[in-house]
């Protein structure tokens, strides 16, 4: 299991990766923008620290943190965001679909709430194959009102699947405050299906890690799914388009309060300052290289636009004949 330094390193990596990605959005190298994970880093970090390489995860539109924490190469991830052939998905997926199946990363998903049932199916397949592999599905507070996710919880509970439902409650779904959309409670949704659930501080990676470890152990032992609601705050925009168009839905006090506890500072404070500096420098080197790699990589050839459309190799008819 990773120590405090490794946890800090991952948080720092995600933090700086996101800041670098935002720069590339501004420079036009990343087209379409991103949903920054800034402020939520402790959750991906803590949860993935409790996982083995063969465990699987599904992620969301706000997925960079999950993908990095599960071990994806930052350079190939950055190349994916920049739409290059060297990207994780060969430039076909971009920010919202980044995946690395070799690392158990079954993909970010652009549809809110859609991935939970996919994680359950993967968990089931693993369980029946005799593995004690666990599946984690990340989702936001907005997703707990999506029917398919609630259906998936029922399936997970019914079949005692080794699934961890991780809700990142960052207070908002786009501009909608959690309380405006969630009647009852988030953990209550798990309880409805007999799934144990707890609410934890999502800003302290050690708290997240402890809770995730316990849930993962339960799952591996065959005791079924768990839900963790991790309280957090989105430090930046819902999506980088907000950097251009100001939307009024969080007032300054709200933002200040939300940002007052920073997962990077919280974990950083636990490190020796020199060591922390050393890691910061190392992370920066990794990201310098990631950006360099991404921008130096080739754009995909338009002639291959339909490549991979069918796993069977079927070639689709073109749009002109």
């Amino acid at each position, binding site marked *: 299991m990773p120590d405090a330094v490794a946890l800090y390193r991952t948080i720092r990596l995600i933090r700086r990766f996101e800041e670098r990605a935002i720069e590339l959005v501004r420079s036009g190298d990343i087209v379409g923008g991103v949903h920054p994970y800034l402020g939520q880093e402790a959750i991906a970090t803590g949860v993935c620290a409790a996982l083995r390489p063969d465990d699987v995860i599904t992620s969301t539109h706000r997925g960079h943190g999950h993908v990095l924490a599960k071990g994806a190469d930052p350079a190939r991830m950055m190349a994916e965001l920049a739409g290059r052939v060297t990207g994780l998905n060969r430039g076909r997926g971009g920010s919202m679909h980044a995946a*690395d199946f070799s690392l158990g990363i079954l993909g970010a998903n652009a549809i809110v709430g859609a991935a939970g049932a996919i994680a359950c199916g993967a968990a089931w397949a693993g369980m029946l194959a005799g593995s004690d592999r666990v599946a984690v599905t990340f989702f936001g507070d907005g997703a707990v009102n999506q029917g398919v996710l609630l259906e998936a919880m029922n399936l997970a509970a019914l079949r005692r699947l080794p699934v961890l439902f991780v809700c990142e409650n960052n207070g908002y779904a786009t501009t909608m405050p959690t309380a405006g959309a969630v009647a009852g409670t988030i953990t209550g949704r798990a309880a409805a299906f007999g799934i144990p659930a707890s609410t934890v501080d999502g800003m302290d990676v050690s708290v997240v890690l402890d809770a995730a470890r316990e849930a993962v152990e339960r799952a591996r032992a065959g005791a079924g799914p768990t839900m963790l609601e991790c309280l957090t705050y989105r430090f930046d925009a819902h999506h980088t388009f907000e950097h251009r168009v100001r939307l009024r839905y969080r007032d300054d006090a709200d933002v200040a309060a939300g940002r007052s506890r920073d997962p990077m500072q919280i974990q950083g404070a636990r490190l020796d300052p020199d060591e922390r500096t050393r890691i910061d420098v190392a992370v920066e080197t990794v990201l310098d290289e990631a950006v360099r790699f991404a921008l130096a990589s080739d754009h995909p050839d338009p002639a291959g636009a339909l490549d991979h459309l*069918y796993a069977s190799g079927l070639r689709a008819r073109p749009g002109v004949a």
Partner: protein
Amino acid sequence: MPILSYLKALGRALGDELAADERVCVFGEDIRVGVANVTNGLLKRFGPDRVVDMPISEQAFTSFATGAALAGRRPVLEFQIPSLLFLVFEQIANQAHKFPLMTGGQAAVPVTYLVPSSGSRTGWAGQHSDHPYSLFAHVGVKTVVPATPTDAYGLFRAAIQDDDPVVVFAPAAAMGVREDVDYATLVPVPLGVARVHRPGTDVTVVAVGHLVQTALSVAEELADEISVEVFDPRTLYPFDWTGLAASLDRTGRLVVIDDSNRSCGIGAEVLATAAEQMRLVAPPKRVTRPDGAVLPFALALDQALQPSRDQLLTAVRAVAKGG
């Protein structure tokens, strides 16, 4: 030779695939008991880890199948009603179908969606009588509509063996079809290859699913008058365009009979592609459901909206004379 019914063919195909490939599994509602008469006996044969009864949570279990497929399984899903495909359209068209391209080739989603008794089942009214195969042809999900027991067996097996999602529509009106078969000759039928049930030289009738029988009977009735070729595409997507072009090279005349709504249905696609690229010596015709059809409950009304034998007969005669 033994007689094989369409339903039995489906059940047999599923059993054979389950036996042949450990990765194959079945999900659906009431499949333990076999309410749709396809999965009977499979639970006993293959156990609850391969034959999994699901709650009424179609969306979740459809994506559950996607997840299982991503993890190496080859699930078959049975749906009790054609319109349940509307309910899971997101999960098929926007998730399962898109994984390979979006992941740059990292993922395959070999899932088969079976709808036994698709289309109108007399008296089941508006929400149970759709025949939405054209929707899947539009989004590009492989779509098969077998017309005979042999093809039902062969196409269903090929669908399960295929590495992409495939929707298999088994028309309610084809369930009564029976065939003398030698079981030893039952084999998978490749997707994307049409079947000419009856050769002809004057008019090509493209008939989908149960309407192949209608087309054959019309061809027989017209035999002295018009030589009708009965062309069963079997797979609507990908469509066997080469086969159709060859047929139209012979006949140059085209009628499509298709039990789905007219606008943007598979009938439209066949006419459009033929008009663009193939030999047509007379204006073609479609016999379909009306635009936007909702099947009314009362028997006579339900039937009034389905493409009929008489309509086909008239259309074939008109096209034979046209041009």
